[in-house]
C-alpha cells in the first residue's frame, strides 16, 4: 500500500493572509506532514502518524489548536480534539479542555484507556490528571495575536461579516 499523509491548518478567511504569515503557514503544514510521513516510513501506524502530525500543528502558534488556540468570550482557551482508527472504528475525543499542551494526545488516551469515546471539561481534566498529563499555565497557550483577535471581535461583534467569524 502507498504511504500517505495529508494535513490541514484550518480553512478560513475571505482574503489572502499577509505574505509573511502565508510563508509561516506553508512551513507549518509542511513540517507536520513530514513528521507524519517519517512515522509512516519508519513502519508506524496511521493512527500514530496523524497524532504526530497534529502535535506539530498544536505546538505551532500560527495555528488555532493547542498553543495558538483562539480565546472564548472570557478570554480563556477551551480546546476540542478527536482521533479515530479506521481499522476497527475505535475513537477518542475530548472537548472544552483547558491548560494542556496537546489535546490530541489526551483524545488518543481516551480511545486507548477508557470504554468511552468523548470526555468533556472537568471529566476530561480529571482523566488527564489520572493519566499523568501535565497541566501547563494558561499563558503558554495564549498568543498576542489571539488577544488582539478577541479584542477586535468584541469591538466589532455582529458587524463582522459572516465570512470573518464563526470559522474554526
Amino acid at each position, binding site marked *: *500500500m502507498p*504511504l*500517505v*499523509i*495529508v*494535513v*490541514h491548518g*484550518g*480553512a*478560513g*478567511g475571505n482574503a489572502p*493572509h499577509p505574505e509573511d504569515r502565508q510563508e509561516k*503557514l*506553508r512551513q*507549518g*503544514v509542511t513540517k*507536520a*506532514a*513530514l513528521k*507524519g*510521513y517519517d512515522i*509512516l516510513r519508519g*513502519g508506524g*501506524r*496511521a*493512527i500514530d*502518524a*496523524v497524532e504526530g*502530525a*497534529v502535535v506539530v*500543528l498544536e505546538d505551532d502558534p500560527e495555528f*488555532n*489548536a*493547542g498553543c495558538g488556540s*483562539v480565546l*472564548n*468570550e*472570557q478570554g480563556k482557551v*477551551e*480546546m*476540542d*480534539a*478527536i*482521533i*479515530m*482508527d*479506521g*481499522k476497527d*472504528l475505535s475513537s477518542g475525543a475530548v472537548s*472544552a479542555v483547558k491548560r494542556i499542551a496537546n489535546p*490530541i494526545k489526551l*483524545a488518543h488516551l481516551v480511545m486507548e484507556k477508557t470504554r468511552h469515546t468523548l470526555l468533556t471539561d472537568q471529566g476530561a481534566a480529571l482523566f488527564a490528571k489520572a493519566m499523568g498529563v501535565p497541566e501547563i499555565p494558561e499563558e503558554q497557550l495564549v498568543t498576542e495575536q489571539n488577544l488582539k*483577535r*478577541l479584542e477586535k471581535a468584541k469591538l466589532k461583534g455582529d458587524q463582522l461579516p*459572516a*465570512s470573518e*467569524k*464563526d*470559522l*474554526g
Partner: protein
Amino acid sequence: TVGAVAMDGQGNVAFATSTGGIVNKMIGRVGDSPCIGSGGYADNHIGAVSSTGHGESIMKVNLARLTLFHMEQGMSPEEAASNALNYMKTRVQGTGGLIVVSKEGEWTAKWSTYSMPWAAVKDGQLQYGLNPGE
C-alpha cells in the same frame, strides 16, 4: 483548526482533528471537531477525512461522513469533497475545508473558504499549498 489523515503500509487509515474553536465563543460551546462524522471519520473500508470550517454547519450536514458516503457511491475523493462542501454551502450557507485519503491511497485537499493551508506526502513526494489554485 488543524487535522491530518493518513494511510500506513498495512492499508490502515486514520484521522485526527484538534481545535481551539471560534473567537469569542460562548463558554461551553463545542463545535464539530470532537464529534465523530463531523470533525472527521476513518474507516478502512472507505477512507479517512478531517474537517475544518464553520462548526455548526459542519455538524448539521455531518460533513466528514457525508464525504465518505459519496465515496461509497463511487465518487473520487476530489468529487466527494467538492460535493459535500457544495451541499453544506447551498443547504446551510456554511463554508469549510476537507482533507481526504481513500482506501486506495488517493488523496485530496478541498475548501470553500478563501484559503486553507495544506500539505501532503505520498510515497516520498511532498506537495503543499494555501491559496486557490495551489
